[in-house]
C-alpha cells in the first residue's frame, strides 16, 4: 500500500468514525442506564415510563455522529483526508466518551430518583451538562469541517 492509499484510508476512517464511535458509546450508555431502570423498577411500583425514557438519553450521541458523518462525507483526496481523519476521529471519541458517562449519569439519576421522586428533574442536570459538552464537540466539528477542501 503506497502513501497515497494510506492517506485515503485515513480519510475514509475519518468519515465513518463519528457515527461508529458514537453508536458504540450510545450502546454502552443506554445499556448502563437501561439496567439501572430495570433495577429501579424492581424497587418501585410506578413511574416506570420516565425511567425507561431517561435511559434512552445517550442515544442522542449517535444522532450527532450521523450528522457529522454527513457533513464530512465527500470524495476523499490526499488533500482533505488528514482533515477528515482528525475531525472525524476526535469528534467520534468525544461522542463515545460522552455517551458512556452520560449513561452513568442517567443510571445515578434513576437510582436516586426512585427513592426520592421529587428530585427527578434536578437529577437530570449532570446528564444535561454532559450533553452540553457533546454539543460543543458537535457544533465545532461542523464549523471545522467547513474548512476542509471538497
Amino acid at each position: 500500500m503506497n502513501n497515497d492509499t494510506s492517506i485515503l484510508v485515513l480519510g475514509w476512517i475519518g468519515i465513518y468514525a463519528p457515527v461508529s464511535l458514537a453508536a458504540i458509546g450510545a450502546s454502552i450508555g443506554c445499556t448502563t442506564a437501561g439496567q439501572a431502570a430495570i433495577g429501579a423498577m424492581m424497587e418501585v411500583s410506578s413511574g416506570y415510563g420516565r425511567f425507561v425514557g431517561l435511559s434512552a438519553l445517550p442515544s442522542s450521541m449517535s444522532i450527532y455522529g450521523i450528522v457529522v458523518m454527513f457533513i464530512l462525507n465527500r470524495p476523499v483526496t490526499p488533500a482533505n483526508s488528514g482533515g477528515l481523519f482528525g475531525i472525524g476521529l476526535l469528534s467520534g471519541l468525544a461522542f463515545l466518551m460522552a455517551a458512556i458517562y452520560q449513561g452513568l449519569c442517567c443510571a445515578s439519576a434513576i437510582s436516586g430518583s426512585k427513592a426520592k421522586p421529587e428530585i427527578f428533574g434536578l437529577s437530570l442536570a449532570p446528564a444535561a451538562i454532559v450533553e452540553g459538552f457533546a454539543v460543543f464537540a458537535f457544533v465545532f466539528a461542523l464549523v471545522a469541517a467547513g474548512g476542509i477542501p471538497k
Partner: protein
Amino acid sequence: MKYVVLMASLPPLGSLFEAATPPISRLKLESRLGLLDAPDLHTLEQIANLIAWPSQPLERTDAVFIQEAHSFLASNRNRTLGSLVTHRLDMRTIVAALRRRRRGEAQPPTGEVWGFGEWVGLIERNWSAPTFKLEVIFPWVRQAHDLLEKDDLIGFEKLQFTVVWAMLNRLGAGHAFDFEALIIYLARWSLVSRWSCYKGDAAVARFRELVDAGLGSHKELFSGASQ
C-alpha cells in the same frame, strides 16, 4: 453490568443511627443477591466470614481466622475490598486488645495468635499505654479507651459503628455501580440492621418484666422492706 441492576434495585440506607428498621429486609436482600454469579457470591461469602463479627462460630479459633484472612488477602486483587477487610481486622485487633486489658490482662497474650495485621507488634510493645500509641493512626482509640474506662459499653459500640460507617463512606467514594459498591452497601446494611436491633428502652422494659415475673409474690415483700 449486573451490578447496575442490582445497585439500582437497592433502597438508600440513609443515616446510620436514624433508621428504626433497615429499608430492605434480609430476605429481600438475599433474593436480590441472586443476580450475582458464583465467583462474586464466593467472594462475598469470604468477606462476610471475615468481617461479620456476630456470626463467627465459637469453634473457630483466632489462628484459623487469621489464616483465612491472610489467604483471602493473598488471593484478592481488588484494592478497595482489601482495604475494607484490612481496616475491619485492624479494628477488631485493637478492640480485642482493649477488651483483654479491661478484663485484667496486664501483659499482652503470649504463645498464641491473637491479632491480625501490622499493628500487633506495636500493641504488644505498648500494652500498658492507654492507646497502645496508636492514636495518630487510629484517632478513635483514645475515645474508645475512655469509654471503656467509664464502662460505657453502649457508647463504645456506637463509636465502633461510627468509625466503620465513616470508613465505608470513604472507601465507597467513586464506586456507584460496581462490585465494590455492592460490598460496601451490604456492609453498611449490616450496620444499620444491627443497630436497629439494639432497642435500649425495649430491653429495659423486658428486663423489668422478667424481674417482676421472677419475683412473683415476693415483689411486695421486697418493696415493703425498702420502705
